Protein backbone atom coordinates (compact mmCIF):
# COMPACT_ATOMS: atom_id res chain seq x y z
CA UNK A 1 0.00 0.00 0.00
CA UNK A 2 2.83 2.45 0.65
CA UNK A 3 4.79 3.77 -2.24
CA UNK A 4 7.82 5.76 -3.15
CA UNK A 5 7.14 9.11 -4.83
CA UNK A 6 9.71 10.89 -6.94
CA UNK A 7 9.68 14.36 -8.45
CA UNK A 8 12.15 14.51 -11.32
CA UNK A 9 13.21 17.92 -12.57
CA UNK A 10 9.62 19.17 -12.40
CA UNK A 11 8.97 22.39 -14.23
CA UNK A 12 5.71 24.31 -14.53
CA UNK A 13 5.23 27.87 -15.74
CA UNK A 14 2.00 29.86 -15.53
CA UNK A 15 2.30 32.78 -17.91
CA UNK A 16 5.13 34.78 -16.39
CA UNK A 17 5.35 33.08 -13.01
CA UNK A 18 7.56 30.05 -12.62
CA UNK A 19 5.72 27.79 -10.20
CA UNK A 20 8.15 24.89 -10.37
CA UNK A 21 11.70 25.37 -11.49
CA UNK A 22 13.33 21.97 -11.69
CA UNK A 23 12.10 20.35 -8.49
CA UNK A 24 13.86 17.13 -7.54
CA UNK A 25 12.67 15.24 -4.49
CA UNK A 26 12.31 11.63 -3.49
CA UNK A 27 9.85 10.55 -0.83
CA UNK A 28 10.47 7.10 0.64
CA UNK A 29 7.68 4.57 1.22
CA UNK A 30 5.75 5.31 4.40
CA UNK A 31 7.41 8.65 4.87
CA UNK A 32 5.62 11.85 5.95
CA UNK A 33 7.12 14.78 4.06
CA UNK A 34 6.02 18.36 4.52
CA UNK A 35 6.43 20.77 1.61
CA UNK A 36 6.99 24.09 3.30
CA UNK A 37 7.29 27.52 1.80
CA UNK A 38 5.69 30.93 1.42
CA UNK A 39 2.68 31.29 -0.87
CA UNK A 40 3.64 31.10 -4.51
CA UNK A 41 6.65 28.88 -3.89
CA UNK A 42 5.19 26.03 -5.94
CA UNK A 43 4.41 23.61 -3.13
CA UNK A 44 0.73 23.24 -4.05
CA UNK A 45 1.59 22.95 -7.74
CA UNK A 46 3.95 20.08 -6.89
CA UNK A 47 1.20 18.33 -4.97
CA UNK A 48 -1.29 18.88 -7.78
CA UNK A 49 1.18 17.31 -10.18
CA UNK A 50 1.03 14.13 -8.08
CA UNK A 51 -2.78 14.24 -7.97
CA UNK A 52 -2.96 14.82 -11.71
CA UNK A 53 -4.71 18.20 -11.63
CA UNK A 54 -1.67 19.92 -13.01
CA UNK A 55 0.56 18.78 -15.84
CA UNK A 56 4.23 19.67 -15.55
CA UNK A 57 5.69 21.44 -18.58
CA UNK A 58 8.67 19.14 -18.27
CA UNK A 59 9.98 16.57 -15.84
CA UNK A 60 8.12 13.64 -14.39
CA UNK A 61 6.33 12.35 -11.33
CA UNK A 62 7.11 8.74 -10.48
CA UNK A 63 5.25 6.49 -8.10
CA UNK A 64 7.10 3.27 -7.29
CA UNK A 65 9.40 3.97 -10.20
CA UNK A 66 6.54 4.24 -12.69
CA UNK A 67 6.05 7.47 -14.59
CA UNK A 68 2.48 8.65 -13.91
CA UNK A 69 2.80 12.07 -15.53
CA UNK A 70 0.38 11.18 -18.33
CA UNK A 71 -2.10 9.21 -16.23
CA UNK A 72 -5.45 11.06 -15.89
CA UNK A 73 -6.41 12.23 -12.40
CA UNK A 74 -9.22 9.69 -11.95
CA UNK A 75 -6.89 6.76 -12.69
CA UNK A 76 -4.26 7.71 -10.12
CA UNK A 77 -3.93 6.02 -6.81
CA UNK A 78 -3.62 9.05 -4.54
CA UNK A 79 -6.12 10.28 -1.97
CA UNK A 80 -6.28 14.03 -1.50
CA UNK A 81 -7.59 16.34 1.20
CA UNK A 82 -8.19 19.89 0.03
CA UNK A 83 -7.64 23.24 1.68
CA UNK A 84 -11.22 24.40 1.25
CA UNK A 85 -14.10 22.25 2.39
CA UNK A 86 -14.59 19.80 -0.43
CA UNK A 87 -17.33 17.45 0.77
CA UNK A 88 -20.18 16.90 -1.67
CA UNK A 89 -22.99 19.05 -0.19
CA UNK A 90 -25.75 16.74 -1.42
CA UNK A 91 -24.36 13.63 0.31
CA UNK A 92 -24.17 12.81 4.01
CA UNK A 93 -20.87 11.97 5.69
CA UNK A 94 -21.16 8.24 5.04
CA UNK A 95 -22.00 8.68 1.36
CA UNK A 96 -19.18 11.16 1.01
CA UNK A 97 -16.71 8.63 2.39
CA UNK A 98 -18.23 5.89 0.22
CA UNK A 99 -18.18 8.01 -2.96
CA UNK A 100 -14.98 6.49 -4.32
CA UNK A 101 -16.18 2.97 -3.54
CA UNK A 102 -19.43 3.71 -5.33
CA UNK A 103 -17.49 4.88 -8.37
CA UNK A 104 -15.73 1.50 -8.33
CA UNK A 105 -19.08 -0.28 -8.06
CA UNK A 106 -18.40 -1.84 -4.67
CA UNK A 107 -21.61 -3.46 -3.32
CA UNK A 108 -23.72 -1.24 -1.05
CA UNK A 109 -23.28 -3.32 2.11
CA UNK A 110 -19.49 -3.45 1.73
CA UNK A 111 -19.10 0.26 1.10
CA UNK A 112 -21.40 1.18 3.98
CA UNK A 113 -19.39 -0.99 6.34
CA UNK A 114 -16.11 0.44 5.04
CA UNK A 115 -17.38 4.02 5.34
CA UNK A 116 -18.56 3.47 8.92
CA UNK A 117 -15.23 1.91 9.80
CA UNK A 118 -13.35 4.90 8.40
CA UNK A 119 -15.61 7.40 10.14
CA UNK A 120 -14.83 5.62 13.36
CA UNK A 121 -11.13 5.80 12.53
CA UNK A 122 -11.29 9.60 12.23
CA UNK A 123 -13.35 9.85 15.42
CA UNK A 124 -16.79 10.58 13.96
CA UNK A 125 -18.71 7.31 14.39
CA UNK A 126 -21.94 9.10 15.32
CA UNK A 127 -21.94 11.59 12.45
CA UNK A 128 -22.48 9.27 9.49
CA UNK A 129 -25.94 10.62 8.67
CA UNK A 130 -25.06 14.29 8.95
CA UNK A 131 -24.76 16.48 5.90
CA UNK A 132 -21.69 18.68 5.40
CA UNK A 133 -23.54 21.86 6.39
CA UNK A 134 -24.36 20.20 9.73
CA UNK A 135 -20.69 19.54 10.50
CA UNK A 136 -18.06 21.92 11.87
CA UNK A 137 -14.97 22.76 9.85
CA UNK A 138 -12.81 20.31 11.76
CA UNK A 139 -15.38 17.55 11.37
CA UNK A 140 -15.65 18.24 7.65
CA UNK A 141 -11.90 17.88 7.24
CA UNK A 142 -11.99 14.63 9.21
CA UNK A 143 -14.65 13.29 6.87
CA UNK A 144 -12.57 14.49 3.92
CA UNK A 145 -9.62 12.59 5.37
CA UNK A 146 -11.72 9.44 5.75
CA UNK A 147 -12.92 9.87 2.18
CA UNK A 148 -9.36 10.18 0.90
CA UNK A 149 -8.37 7.01 2.78
CA UNK A 150 -11.43 4.99 1.72
CA UNK A 151 -9.84 3.72 -1.48
CA UNK A 152 -6.69 2.70 0.40
CA UNK A 153 -4.52 4.88 -1.82
CA UNK A 154 -0.79 4.41 -2.15
CA UNK A 155 -0.14 8.09 -1.45
CA UNK A 156 -1.98 10.57 0.76
CA UNK A 157 -1.90 14.18 -0.40
CA UNK A 158 -2.77 16.93 2.07
CA UNK A 159 -3.11 20.43 0.63
CA UNK A 160 -3.07 22.75 3.66
CA UNK A 161 -5.97 20.81 5.16
CA UNK A 162 -5.77 22.67 8.47
CA UNK A 163 -5.47 26.25 7.32
CA UNK A 164 -9.20 26.99 7.49
CA UNK A 165 -9.55 25.71 11.05
CA UNK A 166 -9.13 27.53 14.34
CA UNK A 167 -5.94 27.12 16.34
CA UNK A 168 -7.02 24.53 18.87
CA UNK A 169 -8.72 22.23 16.33
CA UNK A 170 -5.72 22.67 14.06
CA UNK A 171 -3.28 21.32 16.62
CA UNK A 172 -5.56 18.44 17.63
CA UNK A 173 -6.24 17.41 14.06
CA UNK A 174 -2.64 17.57 12.94
CA UNK A 175 -1.65 15.22 15.71
CA UNK A 176 -4.43 12.91 14.71
CA UNK A 177 -3.34 12.99 11.09
CA UNK A 178 0.16 12.01 12.19
CA UNK A 179 -1.16 9.18 14.39
CA UNK A 180 -3.28 7.83 11.53
CA UNK A 181 -0.40 8.12 9.11
CA UNK A 182 1.89 6.16 11.42
CA UNK A 183 -0.79 3.49 12.00
CA UNK A 184 -1.47 3.04 8.30
CA UNK A 185 2.13 3.57 7.25
CA UNK A 186 0.95 5.51 4.22
CA UNK A 187 3.31 7.71 2.22
CA UNK A 188 2.11 11.25 2.84
CA UNK A 189 2.87 14.61 1.28
CA UNK A 190 1.68 17.54 3.35
CA UNK A 191 1.68 21.05 1.94
CA UNK A 192 1.79 23.92 4.40
CA UNK A 193 3.01 27.47 4.83
CA UNK A 194 3.05 27.08 8.60
CA UNK A 195 6.55 26.16 9.71
CA UNK A 196 5.45 25.06 13.17
CA UNK A 197 2.97 22.64 11.61
CA UNK A 198 5.60 21.24 9.27
CA UNK A 199 8.24 20.85 11.98
CA UNK A 200 5.90 19.19 14.43
CA UNK A 201 4.49 16.34 12.33
CA UNK A 202 6.77 15.58 9.41
CA UNK A 203 9.53 12.98 9.13
CA UNK A 204 11.26 15.32 6.74
CA UNK A 205 10.63 18.93 5.83
CA UNK A 206 11.28 20.18 2.29
CA UNK A 207 11.58 23.95 2.12
CA UNK A 208 10.67 25.41 -1.27
CA UNK A 209 11.34 28.84 -2.65
CA UNK A 210 10.40 30.08 -6.12
CA UNK A 211 9.80 26.55 -7.35
CA UNK A 212 13.15 25.24 -6.18
CA UNK A 213 14.09 23.01 -3.31
CA UNK A 214 16.10 25.01 -0.78
CA UNK A 215 16.64 22.29 1.77
CA UNK A 216 15.23 18.95 2.73
CA UNK A 217 15.91 17.23 6.02
CA UNK A 218 14.60 16.18 9.41
CA UNK A 219 12.76 18.99 11.25
CA UNK A 220 15.55 19.46 13.81
CA UNK A 221 18.17 19.58 11.09
CA UNK A 222 16.27 22.18 9.06
CA UNK A 223 15.75 24.27 12.16
CA UNK A 224 19.22 23.99 13.63
CA UNK A 225 21.30 23.89 10.50
CA UNK A 226 19.45 25.82 7.81
CA UNK A 227 21.28 25.36 4.51
CA UNK A 228 20.55 28.83 3.21
CA UNK A 229 19.75 32.23 4.71
CA UNK A 230 16.23 31.90 3.26
CA UNK A 231 15.58 28.69 5.19
CA UNK A 232 17.00 30.30 8.31
CA UNK A 233 14.55 33.17 7.95
CA UNK A 234 11.52 31.15 6.95
CA UNK A 235 11.78 28.36 9.46
CA UNK A 236 11.53 30.00 12.84
CA UNK A 237 12.82 33.47 13.64
CA UNK A 238 16.42 34.60 13.25
CA UNK A 239 18.37 37.52 14.64
CA UNK A 240 20.87 39.04 12.28
CA UNK A 241 23.71 40.36 14.36
CA UNK A 242 26.75 42.01 12.95
CA UNK A 243 29.86 40.03 13.72
CA UNK A 244 33.52 39.91 12.77
CA UNK A 245 35.38 36.78 11.86
CA UNK A 246 38.21 36.41 14.36
CA UNK A 247 40.86 33.81 13.82
CA UNK A 248 40.10 30.52 12.17
CA UNK A 249 36.59 29.22 12.44
CA UNK A 250 35.30 31.62 15.05
CA UNK A 251 33.38 34.86 15.05
CA UNK A 252 33.03 37.65 17.57
CA UNK A 253 29.52 38.86 18.20
CA UNK A 254 28.05 40.82 21.11
CA UNK A 255 31.36 40.55 22.86
CA UNK A 256 31.58 36.78 22.68
CA UNK A 257 33.64 34.59 20.46
CA UNK A 258 31.67 31.65 19.11
CA UNK A 259 32.69 28.84 16.74
CA UNK A 260 31.38 29.10 13.18
CA UNK A 261 29.15 26.32 11.88
CA UNK A 262 30.38 25.55 8.37
CA UNK A 263 33.13 27.25 6.36
CA UNK A 264 34.10 30.79 7.32
CA UNK A 265 33.43 33.41 4.63
CA UNK A 266 36.25 35.28 2.97
CA UNK A 267 34.99 38.68 4.10
CA UNK A 268 35.52 39.24 7.79
CA UNK A 269 32.41 41.45 8.23
CA UNK A 270 29.49 39.05 8.52
CA UNK A 271 25.93 38.62 9.73
CA UNK A 272 25.73 36.12 12.56
CA UNK A 273 22.44 34.24 12.67
CA UNK A 274 21.15 33.66 16.18
CA UNK A 275 17.83 32.07 17.20
CA UNK A 276 15.87 34.12 19.77
CA UNK A 277 16.00 31.21 22.23
CA UNK A 278 19.82 31.28 22.09
CA UNK A 279 19.79 34.76 23.57
CA UNK A 280 19.90 34.71 27.37
CA UNK A 281 18.62 37.71 29.23
CA UNK A 282 19.26 38.58 32.90
CA UNK A 283 18.05 41.73 34.65
CA UNK A 284 20.91 43.96 35.75
CA UNK A 285 20.98 47.58 36.94
CA UNK A 286 23.97 48.44 34.78
CA UNK A 287 23.00 46.23 31.83
CA UNK A 288 23.88 47.37 28.34
CA UNK A 289 20.47 46.54 26.92
CA UNK A 290 16.92 47.57 27.65
CA UNK A 291 13.64 45.67 27.18
CA UNK A 292 11.51 47.53 24.64
CA UNK A 293 8.57 45.20 24.21
CA UNK A 294 7.65 41.96 25.96
CA UNK A 295 4.96 39.87 24.31
CA UNK A 296 3.70 37.08 26.50
CA UNK A 297 2.96 33.78 24.75
CA UNK A 298 2.15 31.57 27.67
CA UNK A 299 5.05 29.15 27.68
CA UNK A 300 7.51 31.79 26.59
CA UNK A 301 7.98 35.52 26.35
CA UNK A 302 9.40 37.19 23.28
CA UNK A 303 11.45 40.22 24.18
CA UNK A 304 12.50 42.96 21.84
CA UNK A 305 15.68 44.38 23.26
CA UNK A 306 17.39 47.63 22.45
CA UNK A 307 21.12 47.24 22.26
CA UNK A 308 23.72 49.80 21.51
CA UNK A 309 23.06 50.45 17.83
CA UNK A 310 20.23 48.02 17.19
CA UNK A 311 17.65 45.59 18.36
CA UNK A 312 17.61 41.88 19.06
CA UNK A 313 14.83 39.38 19.73
CA UNK A 314 15.04 36.97 22.64
CA UNK A 315 12.77 34.15 23.83
CA UNK A 316 12.79 33.48 27.57
CA UNK A 317 10.59 31.17 29.70
CA UNK A 318 7.12 32.55 30.42
CA UNK A 319 7.59 32.81 34.16
CA UNK A 320 10.34 35.38 33.69
CA UNK A 321 7.85 37.86 32.28
CA UNK A 322 7.36 39.55 35.65
CA UNK A 323 11.07 40.34 35.96
CA UNK A 324 11.45 41.53 32.39
CA UNK A 325 8.89 44.27 31.89
CA UNK A 326 9.51 46.97 29.28
CA UNK A 327 12.06 49.48 30.50
CA UNK A 328 14.10 46.96 32.51
CA UNK A 329 17.87 47.17 32.07
CA UNK A 330 19.32 43.79 31.22
CA UNK A 331 22.51 42.07 30.15
CA UNK A 332 22.48 39.91 27.05
CA UNK A 333 24.49 36.73 26.65
CA UNK A 334 24.60 34.31 23.74
CA UNK A 335 24.43 30.56 24.29
CA UNK A 336 27.78 28.95 23.62
CA UNK A 337 27.25 26.88 20.49
CA UNK A 338 28.30 26.91 16.84
CA UNK A 339 26.59 29.68 14.88
CA UNK A 340 25.79 30.26 11.22
CA UNK A 341 27.20 33.25 9.43
CA UNK A 342 26.10 34.95 6.23
CA UNK A 343 27.60 37.75 4.16
CA UNK A 344 26.80 41.13 5.68
CA UNK A 345 23.45 42.43 4.49
CA UNK A 346 22.03 45.89 4.77
CA UNK A 347 18.39 45.05 4.20
CA UNK A 348 17.17 42.24 6.37
CA UNK A 349 14.15 40.12 5.51
CA UNK A 350 11.50 38.98 8.01
CA UNK A 351 11.77 39.68 10.91
CA UNK A 352 12.79 43.26 10.39
CA UNK A 353 15.73 43.79 12.69
CA UNK A 354 18.55 46.22 12.37
CA UNK A 355 21.87 44.43 12.65
CA UNK A 356 23.28 45.21 16.05
CA UNK A 357 26.87 46.33 16.04
CA UNK A 358 29.19 44.23 18.06
CA UNK A 359 29.78 45.59 21.50
Amino acid at each position, binding site marked *: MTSKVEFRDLRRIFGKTVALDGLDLTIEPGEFVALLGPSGCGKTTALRCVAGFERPDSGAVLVDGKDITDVPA*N*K*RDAGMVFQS*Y*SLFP*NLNARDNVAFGLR*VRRVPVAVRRAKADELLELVGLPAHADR*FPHQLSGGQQQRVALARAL*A*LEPRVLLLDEPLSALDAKVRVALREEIRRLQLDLGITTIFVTHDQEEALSIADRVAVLRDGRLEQVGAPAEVYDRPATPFVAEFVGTMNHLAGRVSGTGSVTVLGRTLPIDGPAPADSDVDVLIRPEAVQVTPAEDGAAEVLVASFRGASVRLRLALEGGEVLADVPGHEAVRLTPGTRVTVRLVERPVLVAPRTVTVPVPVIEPADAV
Partner: protein
Amino acid sequence: MAAVTGLEQPLVTASPRTARPRAWRAVVLLLAGLYFLVPLGASLWYTIYTPTMGVSFEAYGELLTAEGFASSLALSLGLGLATIALVLLLTLPAMLAVRLSAPRLRPVMEVLCTLPLVVPPITFVAGLGTSLRTGAEVLAPTPFWATLIAVQDPAFPIVLVLAYVVLVLPFVYRSLDAGLRTMDVRTLVEAARNLGASWPHVLLRVVVPNLRSALASASFLTLALVFGEFTVARLLGYQPFAVWIVTISGSRGQVSVAVSILSLLLIWLLLLAVSSAFGREKK
Protein backbone atom coordinates in the same frame (compact mmCIF):
# COMPACT_ATOMS: atom_id res chain seq x y z
CA MET B 1 -35.03 35.20 -12.24
CA ALA B 2 -31.35 34.58 -12.03
CA ALA B 3 -31.32 36.84 -9.03
CA VAL B 4 -34.10 34.80 -7.46
CA THR B 5 -31.94 31.67 -7.40
CA GLY B 6 -29.25 33.61 -5.62
CA LEU B 7 -31.72 35.04 -3.15
CA GLU B 8 -33.37 31.81 -2.18
CA GLN B 9 -31.08 31.01 0.70
CA PRO B 10 -30.98 34.38 2.45
CA LEU B 11 -34.77 34.56 2.28
CA VAL B 12 -35.06 31.24 4.04
CA THR B 13 -32.46 31.92 6.69
CA ALA B 14 -33.32 35.54 7.52
CA SER B 15 -36.13 35.48 10.04
CA PRO B 16 -36.19 38.57 12.21
CA ARG B 17 -38.27 37.99 15.29
CA THR B 18 -39.44 41.54 15.84
CA ALA B 19 -43.08 42.48 15.35
CA ARG B 20 -42.69 45.36 12.94
CA PRO B 21 -41.12 43.43 10.04
CA ARG B 22 -43.94 40.89 10.38
CA ALA B 23 -46.56 43.58 10.01
CA TRP B 24 -44.69 44.87 6.99
CA ARG B 25 -44.57 41.42 5.52
CA ALA B 26 -48.32 41.07 5.83
CA VAL B 27 -48.82 44.42 4.12
CA VAL B 28 -46.51 43.48 1.26
CA LEU B 29 -48.20 40.12 0.90
CA LEU B 30 -51.61 41.75 0.84
CA LEU B 31 -50.60 44.33 -1.76
CA ALA B 32 -48.94 41.74 -3.98
CA GLY B 33 -51.93 39.43 -3.59
CA LEU B 34 -54.35 42.17 -4.57
CA TYR B 35 -52.20 43.14 -7.52
CA PHE B 36 -52.21 39.59 -8.89
CA LEU B 37 -55.53 38.21 -7.76
CA VAL B 38 -57.96 41.06 -8.43
CA PRO B 39 -57.44 41.14 -12.24
CA LEU B 40 -57.44 37.35 -12.29
CA GLY B 41 -60.67 37.12 -10.33
CA ALA B 42 -62.28 39.83 -12.43
CA SER B 43 -61.33 38.04 -15.64
CA LEU B 44 -62.66 34.76 -14.31
CA TRP B 45 -65.93 36.40 -13.38
CA TYR B 46 -66.16 37.99 -16.81
CA THR B 47 -65.79 34.62 -18.55
CA ILE B 48 -68.39 32.77 -16.54
CA TYR B 49 -71.04 35.41 -15.93
CA THR B 50 -73.29 37.17 -18.40
CA PRO B 51 -76.18 39.33 -17.17
CA THR B 52 -78.61 37.61 -19.51
CA MET B 53 -77.61 33.99 -18.88
CA GLY B 54 -76.13 34.00 -15.36
CA VAL B 55 -73.21 31.79 -14.49
CA SER B 56 -72.10 29.40 -17.24
CA PHE B 57 -68.87 27.65 -18.20
CA GLU B 58 -69.78 27.62 -21.84
CA ALA B 59 -66.78 29.68 -22.92
CA TYR B 60 -64.41 27.06 -21.49
CA GLY B 61 -66.31 24.17 -22.99
CA GLU B 62 -66.18 25.83 -26.38
CA LEU B 63 -62.48 26.33 -26.00
CA LEU B 64 -61.54 22.81 -25.02
CA THR B 65 -63.46 21.31 -27.89
CA ALA B 66 -62.18 23.83 -30.43
CA GLU B 67 -60.07 22.44 -33.24
CA GLY B 68 -56.32 22.56 -32.67
CA PHE B 69 -56.35 22.82 -28.88
CA ALA B 70 -54.72 19.48 -28.18
CA SER B 71 -52.34 19.55 -31.14
CA SER B 72 -51.07 23.08 -30.46
CA LEU B 73 -50.65 22.32 -26.77
CA ALA B 74 -48.76 19.12 -27.53
CA LEU B 75 -46.55 20.98 -29.99
CA SER B 76 -45.69 23.66 -27.44
CA LEU B 77 -45.00 21.06 -24.80
CA GLY B 78 -42.77 19.06 -27.14
CA LEU B 79 -40.92 22.18 -28.23
CA GLY B 80 -40.47 23.21 -24.60
CA LEU B 81 -39.04 19.86 -23.52
CA ALA B 82 -36.75 19.61 -26.55
CA THR B 83 -35.53 23.15 -25.95
CA ILE B 84 -34.85 22.46 -22.27
CA ALA B 85 -32.90 19.29 -23.09
CA LEU B 86 -30.87 20.91 -25.84
CA VAL B 87 -30.10 24.17 -24.06
CA LEU B 88 -29.00 22.41 -20.86
CA LEU B 89 -26.88 19.88 -22.73
CA LEU B 90 -25.26 22.77 -24.53
CA THR B 91 -24.71 25.31 -21.76
CA LEU B 92 -23.89 23.23 -18.69
CA PRO B 93 -20.82 21.42 -20.07
CA ALA B 94 -19.72 24.60 -21.81
CA MET B 95 -19.99 26.69 -18.64
CA LEU B 96 -18.16 24.06 -16.62
CA ALA B 97 -15.40 23.84 -19.20
CA VAL B 98 -15.01 27.61 -19.22
CA ARG B 99 -14.96 27.76 -15.43
CA LEU B 100 -12.45 24.96 -15.01
CA SER B 101 -10.04 25.37 -17.86
CA ALA B 102 -10.49 28.77 -19.48
CA PRO B 103 -11.69 31.27 -16.88
CA ARG B 104 -10.53 34.10 -19.09
CA LEU B 105 -13.19 33.26 -21.65
CA ARG B 106 -15.95 33.87 -19.13
CA PRO B 107 -16.68 37.48 -20.11
CA VAL B 108 -16.79 36.40 -23.77
CA MET B 109 -19.27 33.67 -22.97
CA GLU B 110 -21.33 36.02 -20.86
CA VAL B 111 -21.62 38.54 -23.67
CA LEU B 112 -22.44 35.85 -26.22
CA CYS B 113 -25.15 34.40 -24.01
CA THR B 114 -26.68 37.79 -23.23
CA LEU B 115 -26.75 38.91 -26.85
CA PRO B 116 -30.18 37.40 -27.71
CA LEU B 117 -31.67 39.67 -25.07
CA VAL B 118 -30.76 42.83 -26.95
CA VAL B 119 -31.78 41.62 -30.41
CA PRO B 120 -35.49 42.36 -31.00
CA PRO B 121 -37.45 39.20 -31.90
CA ILE B 122 -38.59 40.69 -35.18
CA THR B 123 -34.99 41.26 -36.24
CA PHE B 124 -34.16 37.78 -35.09
CA VAL B 125 -36.89 36.24 -37.26
CA ALA B 126 -35.96 38.34 -40.26
CA GLY B 127 -32.36 37.18 -39.88
CA LEU B 128 -33.51 33.63 -39.44
CA GLY B 129 -35.59 33.78 -42.64
CA THR B 130 -32.69 35.17 -44.61
CA SER B 131 -30.31 32.57 -43.20
CA LEU B 132 -32.70 29.77 -44.04
CA ARG B 133 -32.96 30.93 -47.66
CA THR B 134 -29.22 31.47 -48.06
CA GLY B 135 -28.52 28.26 -46.18
CA ALA B 136 -30.68 26.30 -48.59
CA GLU B 137 -28.75 27.66 -51.54
CA VAL B 138 -25.38 27.01 -49.98
CA LEU B 139 -26.16 23.59 -48.56
CA ALA B 140 -28.14 22.20 -51.51
CA PRO B 141 -25.08 20.85 -53.37
CA THR B 142 -23.52 19.28 -50.23
CA PRO B 143 -24.02 15.64 -49.21
CA PHE B 144 -25.79 16.77 -45.99
CA TRP B 145 -28.73 18.06 -47.97
CA ALA B 146 -30.61 14.76 -48.03
CA THR B 147 -30.19 14.36 -44.26
CA LEU B 148 -31.31 17.94 -43.68
CA ILE B 149 -34.44 17.34 -45.72
CA ALA B 150 -35.05 14.04 -43.96
CA VAL B 151 -35.01 15.51 -40.45
CA GLN B 152 -37.55 18.18 -41.40
CA ASP B 153 -40.95 17.39 -39.97
CA PRO B 154 -43.84 19.84 -40.36
CA ALA B 155 -45.39 18.48 -37.18
CA PHE B 156 -42.27 19.17 -35.12
CA PRO B 157 -40.29 22.14 -36.43
CA ILE B 158 -36.66 21.68 -35.39
CA VAL B 159 -35.92 25.19 -36.59
CA LEU B 160 -38.17 26.49 -33.80
CA VAL B 161 -36.26 24.47 -31.19
CA LEU B 162 -33.01 25.97 -32.46
CA ALA B 163 -34.48 29.46 -32.43
CA TYR B 164 -35.81 28.98 -28.89
CA VAL B 165 -32.46 27.68 -27.66
CA VAL B 166 -30.96 30.98 -28.77
CA LEU B 167 -33.79 33.00 -27.25
CA VAL B 168 -33.59 31.36 -23.80
CA LEU B 169 -29.78 31.40 -23.67
CA PRO B 170 -29.57 34.59 -21.54
CA PHE B 171 -31.99 33.26 -18.93
CA VAL B 172 -30.47 29.81 -18.77
CA TYR B 173 -26.98 31.25 -18.57
CA ARG B 174 -27.98 33.56 -15.70
CA SER B 175 -29.69 30.79 -13.72
CA LEU B 176 -26.84 28.33 -14.12
CA ASP B 177 -24.24 30.98 -13.43
CA ALA B 178 -25.97 31.88 -10.16
CA GLY B 179 -26.14 28.20 -9.25
CA LEU B 180 -22.48 27.57 -10.04
CA ARG B 181 -21.49 30.58 -7.97
CA THR B 182 -22.97 28.99 -4.85
CA MET B 183 -20.61 26.01 -4.99
CA ASP B 184 -16.86 25.59 -5.20
CA VAL B 185 -17.01 23.86 -8.57
CA ARG B 186 -13.30 23.37 -8.99
CA THR B 187 -12.71 21.73 -5.63
CA LEU B 188 -15.76 19.51 -5.90
CA VAL B 189 -14.82 18.39 -9.40
CA GLU B 190 -11.23 17.74 -8.35
CA ALA B 191 -12.34 15.84 -5.26
CA ALA B 192 -14.55 13.64 -7.43
CA ARG B 193 -11.80 13.13 -10.01
CA ASN B 194 -9.40 12.25 -7.22
CA LEU B 195 -11.84 9.57 -6.08
CA GLY B 196 -11.79 7.98 -9.50
CA ALA B 197 -14.88 9.52 -11.11
CA SER B 198 -14.94 9.89 -14.89
CA TRP B 199 -16.11 13.17 -16.43
CA PRO B 200 -19.70 12.03 -17.12
CA HIS B 201 -19.87 10.68 -13.59
CA VAL B 202 -18.62 14.00 -12.19
CA LEU B 203 -21.25 15.85 -14.20
CA LEU B 204 -24.19 13.62 -13.26
CA ARG B 205 -23.35 12.69 -9.68
CA VAL B 206 -21.59 15.79 -8.41
CA VAL B 207 -22.48 18.87 -10.45
CA VAL B 208 -26.11 18.21 -11.37
CA PRO B 209 -27.33 17.20 -7.87
CA ASN B 210 -25.83 20.34 -6.39
CA LEU B 211 -27.24 22.51 -9.14
CA ARG B 212 -30.80 21.32 -8.86
CA SER B 213 -32.51 24.58 -8.05
CA ALA B 214 -30.58 26.41 -10.76
CA LEU B 215 -31.49 23.73 -13.30
CA ALA B 216 -35.11 23.92 -12.20
CA SER B 217 -35.25 27.67 -12.61
CA ALA B 218 -33.55 27.43 -16.01
CA SER B 219 -36.16 24.86 -17.06
CA PHE B 220 -39.01 27.02 -15.70
CA LEU B 221 -37.91 29.99 -17.68
CA THR B 222 -37.41 27.98 -20.83
CA LEU B 223 -40.83 26.39 -20.60
CA ALA B 224 -42.55 29.68 -19.84
CA LEU B 225 -40.78 31.40 -22.70
CA VAL B 226 -41.53 28.65 -25.21
CA PHE B 227 -45.18 28.60 -24.20
CA GLY B 228 -45.57 32.32 -24.57
CA GLU B 229 -43.45 32.83 -27.68
CA PHE B 230 -45.51 34.19 -30.55
CA THR B 231 -43.41 36.23 -32.95
CA VAL B 232 -40.98 33.62 -34.23
CA ALA B 233 -43.54 30.83 -34.49
CA ARG B 234 -46.12 33.03 -36.19
CA LEU B 235 -43.73 34.48 -38.73
CA LEU B 236 -42.28 31.08 -39.58
CA GLY B 237 -45.84 29.80 -40.05
CA TYR B 238 -46.20 27.27 -37.25
CA GLN B 239 -49.05 26.98 -34.79
CA PRO B 240 -47.94 26.25 -31.23
CA PHE B 241 -50.12 27.19 -28.27
CA ALA B 242 -49.51 30.93 -28.21
CA VAL B 243 -50.29 31.29 -31.91
CA TRP B 244 -53.38 29.12 -31.56
CA ILE B 245 -54.69 31.25 -28.70
CA VAL B 246 -54.51 34.37 -30.82
CA THR B 247 -56.10 32.60 -33.78
CA ILE B 248 -58.98 31.10 -31.80
CA SER B 249 -59.88 34.01 -29.59
CA GLY B 250 -60.31 36.35 -32.53
CA SER B 251 -62.98 38.91 -31.77
CA ARG B 252 -64.94 37.01 -29.12
CA GLY B 253 -64.32 38.74 -25.83
CA GLN B 254 -65.29 36.02 -23.41
CA VAL B 255 -63.44 33.27 -25.25
CA SER B 256 -60.22 35.26 -25.53
CA VAL B 257 -60.17 35.99 -21.81
CA ALA B 258 -61.06 32.37 -21.03
CA VAL B 259 -58.09 31.34 -23.15
CA SER B 260 -55.76 33.55 -21.14
CA ILE B 261 -56.97 32.13 -17.85
CA LEU B 262 -56.69 28.60 -19.14
CA SER B 263 -53.18 29.09 -20.42
CA LEU B 264 -52.18 30.69 -17.14
CA LEU B 265 -53.50 27.68 -15.27
CA LEU B 266 -51.80 25.26 -17.66
CA ILE B 267 -48.41 26.92 -17.42
CA TRP B 268 -48.73 27.09 -13.68
CA LEU B 269 -49.41 23.33 -13.53
CA LEU B 270 -46.49 22.65 -15.84
CA LEU B 271 -44.11 24.70 -13.73
CA LEU B 272 -45.33 22.85 -10.66
CA ALA B 273 -44.56 19.59 -12.45
CA VAL B 274 -41.07 20.77 -13.39
CA SER B 275 -40.29 21.95 -9.87
CA SER B 276 -41.49 18.70 -8.30
CA ALA B 277 -39.48 16.73 -10.84
CA PHE B 278 -36.33 18.56 -9.77
CA GLY B 279 -37.18 18.59 -6.10
CA ARG B 280 -38.02 14.90 -5.88
CA GLU B 281 -34.66 13.53 -4.82
CA LYS B 282 -33.91 16.44 -2.54
CA LYS B 283 -33.91 15.66 1.15
